[in-house]
């Protein structure tokens, strides 16, 4: 990607304002060491190590409360200093990856649980709280915050909002955008505002005014800094039941997924399909993988949660649907074994291979496209075709780790899906030329998604190199990107919030 020219924004020199920052948050919460800054250049997506230096923020600031954030923003706005909010830094679309250095506003110190309302079933938190830790506290009063991404143990609330994340349990209990009642945001000029569904802190719905809250879902730190959120909690389900079914072909599994989707079972957590490439990948040598009979080519997983009666009924119904669709139940060991490790088996840097079958250390990347049901086969087959073309051409640089297909929408199991292809890339061997080929691969994937009537991203955001061009030129071409630019310029006249992200510098 050609480098963005930021010169017209006349950014100030962050180094001249270190003392003022120290006055605001305390000396110990301002970090200037090169290594402290360097480790906050990357988030979890493949990282251009050859250009690491270009993305190292000038300073790391760890604010402790809303007022401190507001003061930092006032300072930044006054002197035109770029600010990049950083949550857990596990976003997969480079949201927290500074494009023009500046202040890295590391929000993880703001991790207080401010209020647990067990009558109205809400919890009020600061943005640095992690879901797993939150749920340990909520469990004490029988409550539970159901946002459950595969990064459950790492991601934090601010990042979930910043990316408009997607939850593995979303088909049953909604995604982050459905689960935030209201929040406090510090705008680029330091003003502190509350946005909700109307003006209430805790109401889940309202027709009063514009839906300002939604604007901040997926804003990737370009509009302000979230400093507090009121979250909708659910009762902890009485029982949970994961089940896995083996299929002898992609087609059979795909049809079964459809039947399950329209079955109307309410206690669903999710339905997931592992395509044949995914099963092959898992068969490689994963220590945690429970061997499957060779006849199994694809797997469909159905998980239910709720009261015991509901789950029993769902189990019965789903078993009969899957049986009729040609699936065979893979047993408890498979189900519980795989389900138990779902939060921590994602990445294995040493799991990748070159053509000769040798181990090559690579980093995981996940393409998180959204796809309508009718186009899933063409799409996933197309994904593999694209990825394999590059794997073939650049031996030991890329690897195809197969596809997952998950129920996509909130509170429903039909219509559209997260169709994810996992790609591994060899960052250590990257050269500028190979990086360009990687972006070509991403572009081809994004184009296919848009062409087939889907979307480039359902969880991470489409703001990375490679995705962004297709997003602007194709997916949001019918006026949406123009609207985004107008909104950005209105909120952030000096373009200090995460400058360059989503190519919003084009607004000025």
């Amino acid at each position: 990607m050609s480098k963005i020219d930021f010169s017209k924004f006349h950014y100030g020199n962050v180094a001249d304002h270190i003392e003022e920052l120290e006055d605001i948050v305390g000396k110990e919460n301002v970090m200037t060491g090169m290594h402290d800054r360097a480790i906050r250049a990357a988030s979890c997506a493949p990282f251009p190590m050859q250009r690491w230096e270009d993305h190292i923020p000038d300073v790391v600031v760890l604010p402790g409360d809303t007022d401190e954030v507001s003061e930092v923003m006032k300072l930044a706005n006054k002197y035109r200093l770029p600010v990049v909010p950083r949550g857990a830094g596990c976003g997969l679309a480079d949201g927290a990856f500074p494009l023009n250095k500046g202040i890295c506003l590391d929000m993880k110190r703001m991790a207080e649980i401010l209020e647990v309302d067990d009558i109205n079933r809400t919890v009020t938190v600061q943005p640095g709280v992690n879901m797993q830790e939150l749920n340990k506290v909520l469990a004490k009063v029988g409550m539970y915050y159901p946002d459950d991404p595969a990064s459950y143990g790492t991601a934090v609330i601010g990042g979930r909002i910043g990316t408009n994340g997607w939850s593995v349990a979303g088909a049953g209990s909604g995604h982050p955008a459905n689960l935030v009642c209201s929040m406090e945001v510090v705008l680029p000029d330091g003003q502190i505002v509350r946005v909700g569904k109307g003006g209430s802190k805790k109401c889940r719905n309202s027709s009063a005014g514009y839906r300002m809250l939604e604007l901040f879902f997926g804003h990737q730190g370009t509009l302000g800094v979230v400093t507090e959120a009121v979250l909708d909690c659910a009762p902890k389900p009485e029982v949970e039941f994961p089940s896995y079914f083996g299929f002898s072909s992609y087609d059979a599994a795909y049809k079964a997924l459809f039947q399950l989707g329209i079955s109307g079972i309410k206690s669903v957590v999710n339905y997931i399909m592992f395509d044949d490439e995914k099963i092959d990948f898992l068969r490689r040598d994963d220590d945690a993988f429970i061997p499957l009979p060779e006849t199994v080519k694809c797997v469909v997983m159905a998980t239910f949660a709720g009261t015991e009666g509901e789950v029993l009924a769902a189990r019965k119904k789903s078993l009969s649907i899957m049986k009729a669709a040609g699936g065979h139940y893979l047993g408890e060991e498979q189900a519980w074994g795989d389900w138990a490790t779902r939060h921590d088996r994602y990445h294995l840097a040493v799991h990748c291979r070159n053509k000769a079958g040798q181990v090559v250390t690579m980093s995981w990347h996940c393409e998180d496209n959204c796809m309508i049901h009718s186009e899933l086969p063409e799409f996933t087959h197309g994904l593999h075709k694209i990825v394999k073309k590059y794997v073939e051409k650049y031996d030991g640089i890329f690897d195809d780790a197969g596809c997952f297909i998950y129920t996509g929408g909130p509170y429903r199991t039909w219509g559209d899906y997260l169709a994810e292809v996992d790609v591994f890339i060899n960052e250590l061997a990257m050269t500028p030329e190979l990086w360009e080929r990687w972006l070509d691969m991403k572009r081809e994937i994004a184009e296919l998604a848009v062409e087939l009537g889907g979307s480039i991203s359902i969880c991470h955001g489409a703001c990375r190199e490679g995705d962004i061009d297709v997003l602007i030129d194709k997916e949001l071409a019918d006026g949406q990107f123009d609207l985004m630019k107008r909104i950005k310029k209105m909120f952030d006249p000096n373009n200090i919030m995460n400058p360059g992200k989503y190519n919003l510098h084009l607004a000025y």
Partner: protein
Amino acid sequence: MEILSYKDFYEEPVKKDAPVSEELTKDCYNVFACRHKFCREWCPDYVEERNESYTSYGVHTSTLALACGNASLPEMKNEFIHCLECGQCELKCPNTMFGGDFYHYATTTVDLVRKMRRDLHAQGIDYDGFDEVQQVIDEHLAHDAGPDEELTSWAAGLDLPLAGETMMFVDYYNAFQTREVPIAAAKILKAAGVEFGILKHPHVTTGELYETDEDKWVEAAKKNVADLKAAGAKTVILVNPHEYSYFIKEYPRYCGTLPFEVVYITDYVNDLIKADKIAFVKPYNKNVTYHDPCSLNKLCGNYQAPREIIAALPGTHADVEKPILQWKYCCGNGVSGAFRKALPDVAYKIGVRRLRHANDVGAEVLLLACPHCKDMFAETKTKSGINIEPVHILEVVAYCMGIEV
């Protein structure tokens, strides 16, 4: 013996103005390649400081940044002191969990931290607060250079031989700071009819020395092994889990397969209980819980015996958490005492969190299997006023046996 986690390239020092070795770069990259930080919310230091510089991701990526020219070694002086060497991140890491056996590769944060502290020290780059740590090292080196009688003075009146097939190894911390622990251990063993000896002159094992002057520490390690062998040891009982982890994990690296079996005191006592060699004559009517020492639970995967001992204590009501849930706790001391010396405020907060947690399960007594935990929790209790008593498990065993310690 093959040691999966032993990376000999850690021996090559990282130096100012010299390239970082390719192997170390790759090793640090393996953690960076994940950067999912599955381990982060479980790191006891991160839980308090919430600063990702001081996590497994932080130390590996800082070192990788150094290798790539994006960090400066002198600036990194405080980067490696925020680690308790507790081992949680190694266990939680998918590199270890799912790849370990198959690929013969594991994440080794603790070794990296020790190595980097050492390498930095060798170049005169010491973390803030190092002086106090140096004092401890000097003190312990002085013990080593001092007369035999001082080292065994804790055993006065116990009439222990200086040789035997079973030997109890008593480190300097226990011998000087928490002598009630080795005394309880010795009295329990004697009452159970175990014949055992102690070394006339145990040599220094202090963790602070290990991560400062490896050669000196290894020299002492070799002497300890040779002396224990010469004393006729077939079994060596450790009474400090830090030293136990050194004997189990580090000594074989430097001394080869040890010529004796190494057993932790709780395993030994538990076996005695099971074999009916220990008779309990008094109940211990308390609500207790148990704190897994990092060095025993996380570094050595040893957690069963203390639980079984507690279950066998007469009159005791116990609510003991699963060992895996305790991965995220530490008493605050750290496996090398450097952390607590350099970062007393953070150490205190870590201790408070653990004590509060013990209070939450409704315990009056927090049972321990480590002298450092005992000291740390005693201080934390006094400072915080949290109403729970930290007690060493051996003291309770002795109490129930009717032994005065």
